[in-house]
């Protein structure tokens, strides 16, 4: 049982989906209830991961490794480290909350909807726990199709365009990434005489810089589109805007993380030479910074509530990628934490749009205004999410942003100086959005009788808020969990980093709650 924990976590949603398909389609509530049960089960079975995880252990934990396609050297190889753990937990929890939030928002083709969600859930978890590149790629692609349908079938007016754009963009990226993967695979064969996709084996590769660069760019295309980094981001506003609420939540909170995760798990460790190649690093940082500022500026000018949030994602993910390519412990740890944060805060923001949309069926900001009068709880939750997203200290966003800035500052002060403008602009567009939707007088009579949050909606929002607060006030467990993997990563990319900086790679003293005098 315990040695198959990851498999159980991975396949619980899929099993839920299969059962779901057998349920009678006519009984809508049965389908809803079952989907929620399945998703909740998915979350519950993932909880033991947290408790079994040993933050002091090196390498991957809870590893499962079996032959899958021996002819290709493909293994069914699962395992997690701190980075995966956090992202898996994010996935299982948010997947459940997203499904919960769809209860009344979706009333067409329920069965297909929930089936797609559960399928996607398995795909996303798979991406985060695969240690075999082939397996990873399979899950990576598996995620695309459900999301295509979620956008395409249950989306907004321009859903067709958005769905196919999303699909094409990410697919184009991922096939090029596949070429990169295959190059590594072949190189490994050349150097070590056998074919394998195992990350741990591929780490033993030693490739010339030129080749690493090419592979890096191949990976880059795949991951950067997924993140999305600056010039590749245009699928994102469309997809986010048109997707149904829960789809946007999953898209923003988890799908985008697949890209950053890819950088962390594959680009950096597998291509250490290319990753510290000054030119590449400069380009990555420049793109990240452009994304931060650009995303924020564009957000400022949106009149579509959801589109605004979508562009804010571009800005936030810019921080994440900047942190990664700061290539030091702070930047990377901050990046991972910021990925979680972005999942929480942007997820909330999308849910908030969804709540408003469900009541008014419009996303135009100008249609709203003064909602705080009729929906005080809602406006409170929104304010919370907004502050979390804007990086207010004691909420989650600040911890990530500050750590990333620290990392960026260490590598290049100018990066931090540019990136910090994102903090200002972030406040500007969010506050302006808040003002236009929540504050002022109610200018539209349709908004006069809107019901405030109901119990189910509270149930969706509360975990988000609690988590945001937890990370904001006591982020230490997160840093501890990330300590080892991040150190290994940095060690791999910059082997002299710790030696040169005389930093001991160790966790702070256990039981670090030191009360009393110093």
């Amino acid at each position, binding site marked *: 049982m315990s040695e198959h924990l990851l498999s159980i976590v991975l396949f619980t949603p899929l099993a839920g989906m299969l059962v779901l398909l057998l349920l009678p389609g006519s009984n809508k509530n049965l389908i809803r209830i079952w989907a929620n049960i399945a998703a909740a089960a998915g979350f519950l079975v993932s909880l033991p991961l947290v408790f079994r995880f040993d933050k002091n252990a090196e390498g991957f934990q809870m590893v499962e490794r079996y032959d899958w*396609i021996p002819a290709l050297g493909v293994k069914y190889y699962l395992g997690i480290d701190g980075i995966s753990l956090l992202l898996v937990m994010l996935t299982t929890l948010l997947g459940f909350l997203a499904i919960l939030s769809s209860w009344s928002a979706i009333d067409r083709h329920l069965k297909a909807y929930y089936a797609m969600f559960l399928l996607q859930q398995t795909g996303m978890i798979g991406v985060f726990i695969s240690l075999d590149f082939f397996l990873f790629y399979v899950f990576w692609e*598996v995620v695309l199709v459900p999301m295509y349908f979620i956008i395409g079938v249950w989306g907004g007016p321009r859903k067709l365009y958005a769905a196919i754009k999303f699909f094409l963009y990410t*697919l184009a990226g991922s096939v090029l990434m596949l*070429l990169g993967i295959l190059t590594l695979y072949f190189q490994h064969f050349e150097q070590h005489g056998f074919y394998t996709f195992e990350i741990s084996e591929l780490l033993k590769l030693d490739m010339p810089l030129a080749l690493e660069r090419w592979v890096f760019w191949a990976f880059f295309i795949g991951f950067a589109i997924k993140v999305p980094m600056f010039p590749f981001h245009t699928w994102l506003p469309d997809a986010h805007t048109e997707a149904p609420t829960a789809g946007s939540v999953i898209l923003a909170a988890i799908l985008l993380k697949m890209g950053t995760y890819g950088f962390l798990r594959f680009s950096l460790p597998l291509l250490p030479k290319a990753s510290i190649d000054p030119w590449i690093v400069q380009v990555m940082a420049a793109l990240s910074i452009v994304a931060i500022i650009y995303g924020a500026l564009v957000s400022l000018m949106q009149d579509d509530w959801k589109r605004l949030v979508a562009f804010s994602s571009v800005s936030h993910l810019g921080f994440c990628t900047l942190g990664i390519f700061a290539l030091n412990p702070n930047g990377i740890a901050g990046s991972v934490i910021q990925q979680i944060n972005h999942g929480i805060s942007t997820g909330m923001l999308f849910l908030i749009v969804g709540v408003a949309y469900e009541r008014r069926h419009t996303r135009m900001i100008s249609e709203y205004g003064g909602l705080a009068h009729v929906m005080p709880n809602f406006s409170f939750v929104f304010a919370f999410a907004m502050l979390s997203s804007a990086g207010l200290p004691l909420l989650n966003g600040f911890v990530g942003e500050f750590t990333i800035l620290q990392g960026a500052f260490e590598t290049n002060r100018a990066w931090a100086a540019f990136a910090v403008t994102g903090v200002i602009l972030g406040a500007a567009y969010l506050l302006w959005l808040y003002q236009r939707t929540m504050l002022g007088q109610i200018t539209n009579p349709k908004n006069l009788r809107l019901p405030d949050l109901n119990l189910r909606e509270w149930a969706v929002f509360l975990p988000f808020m609690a988590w945001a607060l937890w990370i904001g006030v006591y982020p230490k467990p997160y840093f501890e969990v990330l300590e080892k993997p991040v150190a290994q990563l940095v060690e791999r990319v910059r082997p002299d980093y710790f030696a040169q900086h005389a930093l001991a790679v160790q966790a702070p003293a256990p039981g670090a709650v030191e009360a009393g005098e110093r």
Partner: protein
Amino acid sequence: MSQFYTSTDHFVLVPAIMLALFGCAVLLFDFFLFPEPRQRKRLVWFLFAGEIFTAAGLWRQQAFLASEGLPEITAFQGTLTVDGFSLFFNWIFVAVSLLVAIVSWRYLEIEGEHHGEYYGLILLAQCGMYFLATGTDLITLFIGLELMALCFYVMVGFLRERKRSNEAAMKYLLLGAFSSGLMVYGFSVMYGLAGSTKLRAVAAAIASRDAWDPVVFLAMATTAVGVLFKVSAAPFHMWAPDAYEGAPTTVTAFLAVGSKAASFAFLMRIFLGPLETARPAWEPLLVLVAVLSLTIGNLAAITQNNVKRLLAYSSISHAGYILLGLIAGNATGLKGMAVYILVYAFMTLGAFLVVVALRRENLIGEDIEDMAGLMHRSPGYAVLMLIFLLSLAGIPPTAGFIGKYYIFLALLETSHYLLAALAALYVAVAIYYYFRIVRSMFISEAVAAPPLESTVGLRVALAVTGVLTLAIGVYPEPFLRLAQTSLVR
């Protein structure tokens, strides 16, 4: 020359004999035993029987090869060679013929052209395919090819009252004859080079010459025309969309899968046999052909509204992918070709079978619009079609991905980086038109039409293709091993 028709000869020929025997039997029985149209569906059973015997013959060959540990059995003084390669393809032919046959009778009934000749032609065409996969002699290959082609000409035109069917058959025949005329010209030159029609002798003769020998080149170029025509690679592809569209859909499926697979077997026999040593000369040309096929196939498919036509263009692009395996030319590439052909067979067949399923009295069911809302009318078909389309596009975990995987890997292994990137990018283009169908099925509002009723045969065929398409994707191991055996030559 002493003894002809030895027991080895017989052993090698058994499957072909069975095919021919049952083919003729169908023709005969059609005339004499089942004059009533309603009885004709029983003719299917002849076909089944023929396939079973054929399969038995193949199985014995396979078992013999395995038990004796032989790489191959040659017969008729080198005219036929049974090896892993031929068996691999023959198994595909058996499966494809069976699947096509069991869905055909209902389709033809709807079309009002249900005749026994049809099943006979299937069997005889398969007989031709058998020789294409097994033959190692120019004459045998040529005759086999023509046997298959003639059957297809007739089958494509089988809906005699339909103008489109006539036209498709006419075009296919004229162009086919023209291209095979050019091809056989090439054969004649090959014969002139070697003084023998045996591939082995031709190979030896060509190997003794320079790779860039003008005569060899002439032979190669003209032969390639005929071969590439049959596999519908650009720029020799142009018959394919028309023939695919005009032919009865079941025939289209057989044409797109069986004929193409057989032609690729033929192509590999030629290019990896006699022409192998002239690789420097033909490789650049094939690169051009492959790129053109990918480009034209994918681009032209984007704006198609007829599903069959769209699939025709997609099959052109698949031909391009398979050719890339040949261009790479290493073990991975060749294995990739085999795997690709295998998965191509099932996914394409499946896609066409869904189109077959859509055919009803008043609805042709070939336009993308006809699939609108299929998800809500017949979710099973829609989901299956989705799987086939995903596989055609090469999205894991479906079979198509495994095929593309090998092709890409082979290209990278042989440093064809640009080709690999191009081939990869065309996957994204392909997804665009495949997803036009998906969009229609899943997202468009349903047109008012009753759900499709289906026959047992259709269900079985779809289930088999669907399961295989998924199975090859999820657990490809046994299939890869099968493909591995096809390399033993």
